[in-house]
């Protein structure tokens, strides 16, 4: 039990003293999750809107596939992206293996089905009076689209937070595609795994605390936005 308490004390010291190795992992994590969320939100929200708003042939089948992809194992995505980005793979010439953009690519694949499925659910659950209300107030097609997205913004925020939680806490993709290279592609989760393997609990706990703090910050902003 003592080693946990000692680890907690050392963790706080590491954070307060600005330990370079700890902050490098935090920076790497924030950067790759920033990239992956930008990609998954910009592609996922419009796709989710189309999937939730329009009726078209094959919609149910497509929805089934997207829902299934929400449960994709991170190691499988890691393996897939590794194969794509390795020298023998079709995207090998891009040189993205063991880079932060490479990890972001894998995390985007992880987050995209979550954003699409939950955005589609939010749009499907919108009040059926919203469309006639916006049209009757004079909205054109573009204004109708943005009006609906704004009205279902809480549902889309939930989609974004869920996706962020998933990419922030994944290990498989970061480990396989990033290679866990110190000062370069070592993220919070891969660092925790490595340091725990080495028996160095304090850094693992410090990074774990940071993960918790980020999750707390994201939920706090969500609650603030809901109040607005």
């Amino acid at each position, binding site marked *: 039990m003592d080693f946990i308490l000692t680890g907690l004390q050392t963790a706080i010291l590491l954070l307060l003293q600005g330990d370079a190795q700890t902050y490098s992992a935090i920076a790497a994590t924030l950067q790759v999750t920033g990239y992956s969320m930008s990609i998954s939100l910009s592609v996922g929200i419009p796709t989710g809107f189309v999937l939730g708003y329009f009726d078209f042939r094959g919609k149910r089948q497509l929805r089934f596939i997207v829902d299934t992809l929400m449960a994709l194992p991170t190691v499988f995505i890691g393996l897939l992206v590794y194969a794509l980005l390795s020298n023998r793979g079709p995207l090998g010439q891009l040189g993205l293996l063991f880079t932060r953009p490479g990890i972001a690519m894998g995390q985007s694949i992880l987050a995209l089905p979550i954003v699409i499925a939950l955005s589609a659910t939010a749009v499907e659950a919108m*009040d059926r009076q919203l*469309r006639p*209300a916006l*049209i009757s107030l*004079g*909205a054109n097609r573009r204004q109708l689209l943005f*009006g609906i997205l*704004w009205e279902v*913004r809480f549902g889309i925020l939930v989609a974004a937070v869920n996706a962020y939680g998933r990419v922030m806490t994944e290990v498989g993709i970061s480990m396989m595609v990033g290679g866990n290279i110190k000062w370069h592609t070592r993220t919070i989760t891969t660092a925790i795994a490595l340091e725990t393997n080495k028996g160095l609990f304090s850094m693992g706990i410090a990074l774990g605390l940071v993960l918790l703090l980020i999750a707390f910050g994201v939920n706090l902003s969500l609650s603030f936005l809901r109040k607005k």
Partner: protein
Amino acid sequence: MIPDPIFDIRNVRHCHQGQPVLEMDHLVIQPQSIIGLIGPNGSGKTTLLNLLAGVDTPTSGCIRFKGGILAPFADATRFQISLLPQEPYLLKRKVYHNVAYGLMLRKQYRNQAVKVYEALELVGLDSEDFCSRPWHALSGGESRRVALAARLVLRPEVLLLDEPTAGVDSASIQRIKEAVLSARAEWGATMIIASHDWEWLEQVCDHVLHLYKGRILGEGRVNMLFGPWRSRGDGLHEKPLRDGQLFIVSSPPKRDACALVEHGALQVHGLQPVNAEGRHVLEALILNLTLERSSGCLLLWATVGNLDLYARIPPQSPGLHLLPGKTVWLSYDPQTVKWL
């Protein structure tokens, strides 16, 4: 000179999931008129309003708005026609932004606050109190009035109101009536109002159209009688009423068919007619008398057993001393009964 109609509806059919919900051969709405739509649930009132607002497109047929084909999302449609839906949706914003939303879509930023305050006052809401309230801090009646203010602020040429008085208290109903009448007086709005509130419609509208199963039955009140009908053996059918009298009709297309007796087909007698000449006579108790503004006729509402009937009495009908509570006799020709 008769002005060009604002709406000209021809051969419009609309289906929902393959089932016809509206079938309208020809209907013309004149500018600056206030038309009421009345009818039971599922009679097509909301469908008609949605089609006129461009929210839905008819399955077949043509709706012309000011001479041109009504096209959803066209500027003429979205800037000149506004619909207050049956269950008005308030945007997840404050009341001020809800009312100002349509103005912002039209990029009308000038005097926006003044316009919003005026619209709220028009529907009887204190602008200082309500402007900063969020959408979720309103009662059902207040939400409806905010939604109406959001339409009135746009000063649309056509205002379509679907059940504007449902769930609203009596004082607010009066406010809505004043708002509707001032919309016509101030900027010449044409209005089509669907409601179940017959009395309110009569006070506000120039004409009230009766819809049933997607078709227009006629203007004003109609008498609808539901089966089952039983044969009398003489080619006629009957339905016993609670007080022992019989309502006699011509042969129905099916046992449970709905009969329509136009109120003009019912003749009112102060004394029991001695020789009815093939007409069937029913003894009735007068419940109410109202003036039908569009025709100048008296509209008599009487009860016969468990049945309420409406009869139109032309102005200056001699020999009738009608008062609520008095007994009268209603006669009609069973062959004039129509089947729906």
